[in-house]
């Protein structure tokens, strides 16, 4: 793949393997542009993989930012069509606690309706009936079409769509500089995070979709972006407390959203401005944990006695309005910059701001701009063509109509890969054997991910399959996963190093919440791997910064 990439000139180079980058690569490829997607580490390693996984209805922004709200509801409806297998239509509630009062609530429904968001007032008693986990003290409730979206799945599906439409994909390639021809950017210089090798890729247009890391990229390109990293921390609980998304009906604040997704639920977030040099250090501190729990239990009291699996944090790429270098007027809206117009640097576009919910729209805007630059006139189709995995197939229909009797693990895989589940080899009992029992990941699914979904290490495998994301946090499956990866990779020492690094990576999400069963689990993990298996730093090399996978 790398050799092929070097030989040709691409129409578009997309930098950044988050939802926006993957979505942009998909859009470009679907419009017939010869595209390459380049990611520094792994897909979803940045903000895309470090948020609530909330399929916003837009109601959260209805009062403060009507434009974002109406973008959200439109994209919400589009994603329900094109990304069915990444989405769960749970519905959501905005609830008012006695301390919140009903002032916000009163204007809220009107704001929602104005933005085109179907919002329905519920009697608090009725709300408790439909969502028994909600604090029974609530004095107001509004039902909105919130849901949950799996950002890992969504991004992978976009990457696959890009690939199916002819795009090339590179992971673990960091942009170290740009190739310039006068004032025009004509390519990128890359360094591999896997083996340190350096290469170049040439393209007529380069799109910076690197989220908060785009600030640094822009500097490399000789232009200035004013980005303000805002860190948000979240906690993952060991099972789903709630069926519907729960939101506090008040101005956006800390720990005011509880989202059920897959086997777990997530409370968040906090919001803290951090210095730019801290964007790769996503540590959740004890004060944030306390704050999330203190506020979270007001939303759903069961949180107080539910096991916390992990804590994690992401960075929102907040962007100052273009003409304001002071950063005072910060927008959460989409920012698409033509650096030729703005800075006189040709062939360079930045797409940023926005949010996971509007990744497709961001991709559309960036691709429109790239098309204009390349003189291509083709319409965007990403809003109507389903993503790979969300097509309406025969198998899918049979599955839904229960013509085929499915096992729990087949259902779990079906939820993860949608109509692509048929690609998972399940021809004998050995392929069906479970590697990860918490999340029901089979040998066949692991092999499929390794072969098809750009998996080089256990963290990649986790993001593609949920292996190691469950209650045991990789305690029993990490070793099995390493064993299967080693068969493909054939470098035993690297596999052992990877296993050791994966356990360290799991620990980094566990220590902020390391009490109760989480402490029990990690002590068991330590004894098993370092004790029984003898996996210690005298034998293996552990990747230093665990977020650098």
């Amino acid at each position, binding site marked *: 793949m790398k050799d092929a990439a070097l030989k040709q000139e691409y129409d578009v180079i997309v930098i950044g393997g988050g939802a926006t980058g993957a979505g942009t690569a998909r859009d470009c490829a679907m419009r017939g542009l010869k595209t390459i997607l380049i990611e520094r580490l792994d897909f979803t390693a940045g903000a895309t993989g470090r948020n609530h996984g909330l399929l916003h209805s837009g109601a959260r922004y209805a009062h403060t930012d009507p434009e974002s709200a109406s973008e959200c509801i439109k994209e919400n409806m589009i994603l329900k069509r094109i990304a069915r297998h990444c989405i769960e239509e749970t519905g959501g509630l905005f609830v008012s606690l006695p301390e919140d009062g009903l002032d916000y609530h009163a204007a809220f429904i009107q704001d929602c309706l104005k933005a085109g968001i179907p919002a329905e007032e519920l009697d608090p008693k009725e709300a408790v009936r439909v969502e028994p986990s909600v604090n029974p003290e609530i004095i107001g409730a509004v039902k909105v079409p919130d849901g949950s979206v799996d950002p890992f799945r969504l991004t992978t599906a976009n990457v696959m769509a890009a690939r199916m439409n002819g795009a090339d994909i590179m992971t673990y390639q960091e942009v170290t500089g740009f190739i310039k021809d006068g004032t025009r950017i004509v390519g990128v210089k890359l360094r591999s995070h896997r083996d340190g090798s350096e290469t170049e890729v040439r393209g007529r247009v380069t799109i910076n979709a690197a989220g908060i890391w785009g600030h640094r990229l822009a500097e490399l390109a000789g232009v200035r972006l004013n980005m303000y990293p805002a860190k948000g921390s979240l906690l993952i609980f060991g099972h789903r407390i709630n069926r519907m998304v729960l939101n506090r009906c008040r101005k956006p604040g800390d720990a005011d959203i509880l989202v059920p997704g897959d086997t777990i639920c997530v409370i968040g977030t906090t919001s803290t401005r951090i210095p730019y040099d801290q964007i790769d250090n996503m540590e959740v501190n004890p004060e944030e944990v306390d704050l999330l729990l203190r506020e979270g239990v007001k939303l759903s009291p069961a949180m107080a006695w539910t096991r916390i699996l992990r804590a994690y944090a992401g960075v929102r790429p907040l962007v100052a309005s273009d003409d304001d270098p002071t950063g005072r007027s910060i927008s959460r809206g989409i920012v698409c910059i033509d650096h030729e117009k703005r800075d006189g640097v040709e062939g360079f576009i930045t797409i940023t701001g926005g949010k996971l919910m509007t990744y497709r729209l961001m991709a559309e805007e960036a691709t429109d701009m790239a098309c204009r630059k390349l003189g291509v006139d083709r319409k965007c189709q990403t809003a109507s063509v389903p993503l790979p995995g969300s097509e309406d197939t025969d198998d899918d229909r049979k599955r839904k109509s229960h013509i085929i009797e499915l096992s729990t693990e087949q259902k779990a895989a079906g939820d993860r890969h949608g109509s692509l589940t048929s690609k998972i080899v399940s021809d004998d009992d050995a392929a069906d054997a479970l590697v990860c029992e918490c999340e029901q990941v089979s040998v066949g699914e692991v092999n499929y991910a390794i072969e098809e979904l750009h998996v080089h290490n256990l963290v990649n495998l986790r993001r593609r399959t949920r292996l190691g994301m469950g209650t045991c946090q990789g305690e029993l499956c990490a070793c099995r996963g390493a064993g299967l990866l080693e068969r493909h990779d054939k470098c035993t020492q690297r596999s052992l190093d990877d296993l050791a690094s994966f356990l360290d990576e799991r620990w980094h999400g566990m220590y902020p919440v390391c009490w109760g069963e989480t402490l029990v689990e990690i002590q068991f993990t330590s004894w098993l791997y370092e004790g029984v298996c*003898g996996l210690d730093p005298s034998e293996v090399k552990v990747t230093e910064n665990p977020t650098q996978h």
Partner: protein
Amino acid sequence: MRFDTIIIGGGLSGLVSAIECARAGQKTAVVSAGQSALHFWSGSFELLGQAGGETVIDRPLDSLDTLPENHPYRRIGSERLRTLLSKVPGMLSDAGLKSAGSLDRNHLRLTPLGFLKPAWLTLGDYVAFEAGKPLPWKKVALVNIYSYLDFYPRFLAYGLEKRGVECKMAAVNIPDLDTLRKSTTEMRATNMSRFLTDSAVDRLAAEVNKVAKGMDAVIMPAVLGIYSDAPVECLRKGVDVPVWFVPTTPASVPGVRCQLSLRDLFIRLGGEFLPGDIVKGGEFEKNRLRRVYTVNLGDMPLEGDNFIISTGSFFGHGLIADIERIYEPVFGLDLNVKGGRTEWYRKDFYAPQPYMEYGVTTDKEFRPSRKGETIENLYATGALLAGFNALKEGSGAGITLATALHVASRITG
């Protein structure tokens, strides 16, 4: 119900002290909540594998002065430690478990990932090498059972080949395991061991022979012999070259075997084993524990002259952490925990973790205290004790066994 000695905890430590008390003629009871650290046992007992940052091979008992003064080994003293631990192979043998090893020199065990780590005593059929010598084989076959995921031939081969052993890898199958394989979660070590008995072992041996020709040894996952040595002996008889076992990830066949064997020995000696029960608390008179109450027995107390608490560390729920504090849940015993939750851990997974050293503090006779007052007839043993990092020292089993034997001999002495 009245007993001479009541032991809370049915893991390695609890069972060993119980056996000693019962053997001395005491009326003894063990209250066991269920699984213990034995259920992920490697098949080897460690005495001391690391001291002063160095791997200990020779004379582990002479390396004790590198340990902190309050360490259980130092409190017992090397002379007495030798006397106590010398009893262990005999006790294992009484329970029907063969073992090999020396207190003077560690040997090396082969871990499931192919590393060699120091150990004191290893079960007879498990891979163990003499330290400092070339490995005794030139060519071995690493033989897995088809579709079994918890045996890692390629990792083992990597470790062995580095030491000059040529490795051949193979997977064998017998129809006896097909039923098990139909379920996606059943091909685990302890489940397989229930099927690999009698004539199934003959069929397995025949399959292993097909790949064992010309090999110096066959290495297999420890998936046989959960209830007795018979299947292992049968396999060794049926295979033309020596067969050795490597432990697997949990649940461990040698671990369950060891637990069951020691429990049976205790029952044969007349002991009362109360499985699936948890001690809720006790009643004290002055500084003596008079009786304890359990979940199953409700308001019927267990009364005793002496008590031993061997409930383990966090994993055994001998210690409980909540968001604010760490406590000993049965009696609220005094602990060595300092500070709040941010003090309990290090951010590097492989750094020595402070929580690993937490446990109950005791006097020199291993008697714990409540609110500073020593309880005169309660003793604590094993992983529940404070003041050592057994994982980093490679000392877990040694401490567990030594403190159990030490306390039992004080009680019966």
